[in-house]
């Protein structure tokens, strides 16, 4: 499905991209991201459909239920504009953009959730945490800058790719091999969290005492076991706090002090 010429000026595309950063502003249980999608694509529809009746029809189809990962949705937004251009030119039926969205939203959500939400973002969070513990605020700033440079570049690239290539964006996204990268990111994240446990233990040892450092590592081992057996996060966190107090009191008792 080729596209002869780009109809929309770059300024309009930039406006759409800016608005797609608000995709989830009014996430709702009925249409999910429908309002955000309509808000984002509206500048393009205004440009493509000077006739208010056709514009209203186009807007109505983009108010249908839509839900995707907020980053990878940029590709679908770009592709939807690609199809709207063809609809406006009379090359496609008016249902094509909606069909495109419905087909792609599930797979794109799965790719985005797996790569960004379960891989890159927690990895960046762990890197920022470990960097802050080891090197202080410059490492935190560096981790945030790196994450945002990459995520914004990918959002823009996906949007542009969807706009330029329409249905072919699927092959482009598949070519990125994001699920394979996600597996590596998850391994690296577990490694970084371990380094975080070690650094927190060192910090406790130097600030409170060697026993506190050892307690940090013991709590990490206990936490892993408890969570792998299905313990809930917040009650387990309270249990960890209580265990820390109990260990300190036990040590004080053994030493014969208060």
């Amino acid at each position, binding site marked *: 499905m080729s596209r002869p010429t780009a109809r929309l000026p770059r300024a309009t595309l930039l406006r759409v991209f800016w608005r797609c950063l608000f995709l989830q502003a009014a996430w709702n249980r009925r249409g999910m991201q429908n309002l955000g999608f309509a808000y984002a694509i509206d500048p393009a529809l205004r440009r493509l459909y000077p006739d208010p009746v056709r514009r209203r029809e186009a807007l109505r189809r983009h108010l249908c239920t839509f839900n995707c990962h907020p980053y990878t949705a940029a590709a679908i937004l770009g592709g939807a504009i690609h199809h709207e251009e063809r609809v406006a030119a009379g090359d496609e039926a008016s249902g094509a953009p909606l069909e495109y969205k419905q087909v792609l939203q599930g797979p794109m959500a799965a790719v985005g959730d797996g790569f960004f939400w379960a891989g890159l973002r927690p990895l960046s969070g762990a890197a920022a945490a470990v960097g802050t513990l080891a090197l202080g605020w410059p490492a935190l700033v560096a981790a945030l800058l790196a994450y945002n440079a990459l995520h914004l570049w990918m959002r823009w690239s996906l949007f542009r790719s969807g706009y330029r290539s329409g249905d072919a964006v699927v092959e482009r996204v598949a070519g990125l091999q994001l699920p394979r990268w996600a597996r590596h990111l998850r391994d690296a994240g577990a490694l970084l969290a371990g380094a975080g446990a070690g650094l927190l233990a060192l910090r406790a040892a130097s600030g409170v005492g060697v026993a506190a450092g050892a307690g940090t590592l013991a709590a990490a081992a206990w936490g892993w076991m408890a*969570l792998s057996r299905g313990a809930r996060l917040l009650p387990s966190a309270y249990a960890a706090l209580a265990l820390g*107090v109990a260990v300190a009191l036990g040590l004080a008792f053994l030493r014969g002090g208060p």
Partner: protein
Amino acid sequence: MIAVDYLVVAIVAGLAAIERKGFLQAMLSRPVALAPLTGLALGDPYAGLMLGPPLELLWLGAVNLGAALPPHEALGAAAITGGAVLAGRALGTGVTPAVAAVTVALVAALAVLGRGTDRLIEEWNVHLARRAEALVERDAPRAAVRANLYGLLLPFAVSFVLAPMGAAAAAWLVPPFLRWLPDATVPLAYAWAALGGFAAAAGARAFRSQRGLPLFASAAALTAVLGTLAGAWP
């Protein structure tokens, strides 16, 4: 000054709630960034740098997958940091591990409350969607799409109200508690250390890596050993 401090916590938490889901999602509302930002806004960025890493690891798995709602880690982080800074200031000690441990115990449940409010907001946003559809039918497309931005107001308002309430609870209760039990300082420092270890394990589990346990355990052991050899462990 105290009223200004609570206003600062409210604004930072409100903006973080918007960034968390409604706009951008650039990790600025993650605890590792938000705790130092809240600390900085209250004049104590180092407290935020102390609190941010363990809170980030604790809530590393707090992500919005599909329609599932995670705990509101941004609300929790802003309230904990605000409460700890104000409690430490009242005690004259700054944010110590004991202050941090008691504040987390007191305020962390706000993150779960925040998840409940998120659910209510998503229900409420259905009204916005219906309104937008009605406006399209009444030939007011610009007003219809603008309804999307009104969805930012409630998340801001909820965190604007709840975060300073959590911070106030800590600022009022933590100083008298620690003055009443001065001997609790060391046990509470142990509690903070234990929470750090647990948080790291929770963070590692959040990755759901098939090789997670050996990677986590070996990295923890290696870091501790290398740190000891480098003299970080006394």
